[in-house]
């Protein structure tokens, strides 16, 4: 590993994004450290997903600088950027699996496209990833339309993990899962972080997930990150929205007994 734990792995400086006249982010700063799980929270429409898409380069920032792995990917030639893009994995909200491929084939897409591996090794690796995200081996041969929502998320995660990424981006990973499935997912993320040394960038509304897995939490409001810190920092905050979020009825229920 070329970088050590604790170094900044994602640096966002002075980010501005707009849709027409609508300003989503204004002078947004955010630093994510290697090896941590960071949770991004914020009300609906505060641009959490937009921030994620901007870091991934799916949306162009209108101003500001984004460095991932210490590199400014936007400035790089296409070819070189592709190489670095393989160093992250993304789980989209509904898995975004390719509907014409089975789960195993979905996981093997990056192997096929980027590497030259024997079919036998690809099959083994697919089986390992499927087991790793807690899917049954039978799921390998199923098509996305044959999977439940929770299974699609797990399969999407398996695909995101295919190339052993350094950063994992998760967009609302537990939304739409039953509480047991969501808790298992939290545990899975924790596990993966421990064993693979992943950095996890997590957009979520799930207070349990925040509590269970996140090392730090960043609150998006007023077009920027208004607060970043541990869960205890959140609980002490005087900001009305943050207070409401972490002391509301649902929050009290989530934190009760923890």
């Amino acid at each position: 590993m070329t970088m050590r734990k604790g170094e900044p792995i994602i640096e966002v400086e002075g980010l501005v994004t707009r849709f027409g006249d609508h300003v989503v982010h204004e002078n947004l700063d955010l630093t994510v450290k290697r090896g941590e799980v960071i949770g991004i929270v914020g009300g609906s429409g505060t641009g959490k997903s937009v921030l994620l898409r901007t870091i991934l380069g799916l949306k162009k920032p209108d101003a500001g600088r984004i460095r991932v792995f210490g590199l400014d990917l936007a400035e790089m030639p296409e070819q070189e950027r592709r190489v670095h893009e393989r160093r992250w994995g993304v789980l989209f909200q509904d898995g975004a699996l390719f509907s014409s491929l089975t789960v195993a084939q979905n996981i093997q897409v990056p192997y096929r496209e980027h590497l030259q591996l024997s079919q036998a090794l690809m099959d083994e690796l697919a089986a390992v990833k499927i087991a790793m995200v807690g899917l049954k081996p039978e799921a390998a041969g199923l098509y996305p339309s044959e999977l439940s929502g929770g299974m699609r998320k797990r399969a999407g995660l398996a695909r995101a993990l295919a190339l052993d990424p350094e950063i994992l981006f998760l967009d609302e990973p537990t939304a739409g899962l039953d509480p047991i499935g969501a808790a298992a997912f939290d545990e899975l993320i924790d596990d993966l972080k421990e064993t693979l040394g992943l950095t996890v960038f997590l957009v979520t509304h799930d207070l349990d997930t925040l509590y269970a897995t996140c090392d730090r939490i960043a609150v998006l409001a007023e077009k920027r990150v208004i607060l970043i810190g541990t869960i205890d920092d959140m609980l002490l905050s005087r900001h009305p929205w943050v207070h409401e979020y972490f002391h509301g009825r649902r929050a009290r229920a989530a934190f009760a007994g923890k």
Partner: protein
Amino acid sequence: MRNSAGREAGAAPRASCETGVDGQTLHIVAAGDWSIVHLDPVDRQLRALLAAPPSVRRAEIDLAAIDRFDTAGACVLARTAALLRDKGLTVDLKNMSEAQRILIDKIDAGGMPEPVRHLSEPLYIQVTARVGEAVRAIGEEAMGMLGFVGAVVATIGRTIVHPRRLRVVPFVHHMEKAGFDALPLVCLLTFLIGAVVAQQGAVQLRQFGAEVFTVNLIAIIFLREVGLLLTAIIVAGRSGSAFTAEIGSMKMREEIDAMRTLGLDPMDMLVVPRVLALIVALPLLTFVANIMGLIGGGVVVQLMLDMSPGVYIQRVQEAVGFWTFGVGIVKAPFMAATIALVGCRAGMSVTGSAESVGAQTTRSVVRSIFLVIVLDALFAMFFTAVDI
């Protein structure tokens, strides 16, 4: 007996693996970058080794020189160790770091999973199975289509009893999209085909000195067959496919389920307006197509045979009776119903995936063109039997 792989040129230390036998012990020394990017040669080497293992009792795998390691590397190591154990060897993993141990344990914990199998039956079974599957699908589709036609007829029946159930706005909208918007294409194509038929006919008939009968040829062939067939095929390609794709994507996004839960009947909302719109639009389009075909023929006849438009019109009137025109136009609503029903039914059969929308759209166009031509042949037999 020493082998190594992966030590090709290149600054970065590639994955490598040295194997050697020393007395009763098989030594495997792993080194370098054991991440997925460089792993393939090592994997092949280890597979080859396991296919013909040396006859020893112990195996020692030394991990000290590995400087990068990921799940893929762990997977290859875990598998190699497991297979060696299966062959009755005692396996030692030496100099394993803590991180490596965690990774390997993680993979071993679920038991080394069975690799994903790709089903492949022998060819004759595949062929037989596909034929059988196709036959079964035809039967099922025929029954499904019959049920669908019944449901649509019942809905249309209810619409006739309660005319207020008819969705006037979608009906008119589909008339415009399937009928009016198709006019330029239909006009151009039938004009050109009319001209081509006239030109070819005139050349052939001239050999018998019967070129004046070119007019009969054009008039009869267009009014009875070609005008309608061309229009129907164009409409099947334009509108049949659109019906399938529209209804199919609504089905995929659960809009149709949403309609049902809101107490709306998708038959009423989506299918009946399309079917009725096409039943009205296709005869009108056919009429225009006939006229354009006759005009195309007339232009060629004037150029090649020096026949003035007045004479041409008179000759056309002599050549055709009411039923020459009637035969063509009577068939139109039936073909329209076929195209619309096949299109809507294919849309309703779409399942969850984007691919299925494409497959159903293709199927809808192919099937409706096929049925249009079969229907035309049946009508030809019928009209011959009743002597029209």
